[in-house]
C-alpha cells in the first residue's frame, strides 16, 4: 500500500494513515532506545581524526530523527485536523474574535 502510494504520489488516507502512524511510533521507540549508546561511552576514538565517535553517532542520530519525521509527514500526517480547525467553533468562553480574551465567566 505504502509503496503504491509512493509510486502514484498520492497521499495516504484513512487506514493507511493509521497504519503509518503505528510504524512511526515503532520507529520512535527504536530511536529512543538507540539513543543510549553505552557501547561508545568510554571510547575516545576520533572519526576521520576530527569527530569524537560518541558525537559522530549522535549527529547521525539527529539525521535519523529527521528521516523519521519526514516519513511521519508523508505517511502519518493528521490531515483531518485541518478540516476540523477550519470549521467554526462554539466559541470558547475565553476565546477572542479579534483581540483575544474574554470577560470573566461567572
Amino acid at each position, binding site marked *: 500500500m505504502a509503496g503504491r502510494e509512493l509510486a502514484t504520489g498520492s497521499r495516504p488516507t484513512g487506514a493507511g494513515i493509521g497504519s503509518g502512524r503505528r510504524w512511526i511510533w515503532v520507529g*520512535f521507540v527504536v530511536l529512543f532506545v538507540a539513543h543510549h549508546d553505552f557501547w561508545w561511552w568510554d571510547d575516545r576514538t576520533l572519526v*576521520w581524526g*576530527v569527530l569524537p565517535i560518541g558525537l559522530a553517532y*549522535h549527529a547521525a542520530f539527529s539525521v535519523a530523527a529527521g528521516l523519521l519525521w519526514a516519513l*511521519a509527514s508523508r505517511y502519518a500526517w493528521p490531515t*483531518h485536523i485541518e478540516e476540523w*480547525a477550519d470549521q467554526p467553533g462554539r466559541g*470558547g468562553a475565553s476565546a477572542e474574535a*479579534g483581540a483575544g*480574551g474574554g470577560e470573566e465567566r461567572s
Partner: protein
Amino acid sequence: MTGETAASLLPVIVIAGYLGLLAVLGLVSSRFFKGTSADYFVVSRSVGPFLLLMSIFGTTMTGFAMVGSTGKAYTSGIGVYGLMASWSGLIHSAVFFVIGIRLWAIGKRHGYVTQCQFFRDRFESPALGYLLFPVLVLLVIPYLLVGVIAAGKFLHSTTAGIFPGAFPMPDLVLADGTTRPHPLSGGVPPWLGGLVVCGVVLFYVFFGGMRGAVWANTFQTIIFLASGVIAFSLIASRLGGLSEAGRMVAASEFGGARLAREGMVGHVQFLSYCLVPLSVGMFPHLFQHWLTAKSAKSFRLTVVAHPIFIMLLWVPCILIGLWATAQFGPGLNPNAVLGRMVGELVHSPILTGLVGAGVLAAIMSSLDSQFMCLGTMFTNDIVVRRFGKHRFNDREKILLARGFILFVVAVTYLLALYLKDSAHVFDLGVWCFSGFAALFPLVWAAVYWRRATRAGAIASLLTAVIVWGVLFYRDILAVKPPGTGDEELLIAGMMPVTFIFAAAAVVLVVVSWATRAPRRETIEQFFDLPAQGKAP
C-alpha cells in the same frame, strides 16, 4: 580617528550595524500591521512553512544553544550533545507533531491566543488561568536570564581590548604575587551589552509585534546558522585544521577526558535528560508561534527540518568547546568560552563582528518571542479578563502589553546583573526547561485525556511549582557550603526534572480520578476531532 583605531572598532561597528538592521526590520514590519490586536499578537494566523520553521527554530535556540553548549562541552565534554541536542531533535519534533498541531487546530477553531485561555476553558476554571499566568512568567524569567547573561558575557569577551580607556579592569593577581592585565579589560561590560540587546529587541517587538518577531527570527536564524559555520571554519583553520585541532584535544589531559562520556555524564543522568525537551510543549512563546501558522501543513517543514538544524548548530559549538579545553586548559568561566575562542582566534575584525552578530542573533531570536508572549498573556489573561474586552480598545491593549513587557524586562535585567557571575547559562537553561517539562502532563492531559479534571490540573500545577521551586532554590539560589563544586544537582543519579515531572503527573492522575469529571459539553468542545481519516 586613525586607521588603526577604526580597524579595532570594526567588530563593534558590524554588530551595531546588525542591531540597526533589526530595528529597521521592526519598522518595516510595522508597515504591514493591520491595526488589530489579533494581527499584533498572532500575525492574523497567516505564517507559512518556511517562516514557521525559521521562527520556531530561532525561538527554540537561544544563548543556551551557542554560548551554553560551547561552555558545557568545555566543562563536561561531548556528552552534552546527547543530553540536549539529539534528545531535542527526536522529542521536539514529536511534541510539535502530537501537541503542536492539535493546539494550533483548537486555537484556530476556538479563537485562542494564549495558553491560559485554552486551559481555562478546557478545565472549566478561571482560577486555573490566573494560577497559570504567574507560573509561566516565573518560568520564562530564567529563560530570559539565559539570553541576557549570555549576550552580556559574549559581548564582553569578544570586544575585550577595544575600549581600554572606557572600560578598564583591574589587573589579575597571580598566585606568586605577580600581576598580569585582565584579558577582558576594555571590553563592553555585561551591564551595557545586556542593556543594548534588550533595548533593540524591545524596539522591534514594540513596532512590529509578532510579525516583527517572526521576520526578525527568520533573519536571525539565517545569520546565526551562517555565522556558526564561519566561526567554526575560521577557528578550525586558525588551530591548524580539523585534524590538528582534534589531535591537540586528544593530547591534552584536560581535553582528552572530554572526548568520551565516562566520568563526565552518568548513564541514568543521560537517560533522564529525555524529559527536558518535553518543555517545548508548554513554552508560552512557542504556543503563540504555533498559533501564527496558516495551516497544519505549515508544520511539516518544521517537524522534519528541526532535528537537522539542531545538528548543524550544535555540532560546531560542541567542537569549539572541546578545542577550547586544549587552548585554555581548565579554569575558564564556561559562559565566556565561545567569546574567548572567537576573540582570540578569529583575527579578522569584520568576521569577528559577523560571528558576534550571529551569537546575538541566536539570543535575540528567543528574547523577542518571549517578550511578545509575556505582553500577550498579560493583556489577554489578566487585564481583559478583569476589566472586560470592551473596556480597552486595541491600541490601549497593545500599550498595556508593552508596559508589562518593560516591567518584566527591567526585573530580568536586574536579576541578570546579580547572577551574571554565579549562574551558568547551560544550567540555568536546563532549570527553566525542567520547569516547563513538569507542566507537560498538564498539556498532554488537556489534549488527550477526557477524564482530566479542574482539580487535577490545579493540583498538578501547584505540585510542579512547589517541587521545582524547592529544588531550584537548593541548586541555584542557596548559598552552598564551602568546597561544593559547580556540578549539576542530581537525585539518585537522575536529573531533578524526573521527580518534578513524576510528581506533577501522579498528582494529576490521582486527583482527576478522585474528582468529578468535566461536563459533557466541555468534552464535546475539545474532543470532537474526527477519528483518523474520517470526515469531520
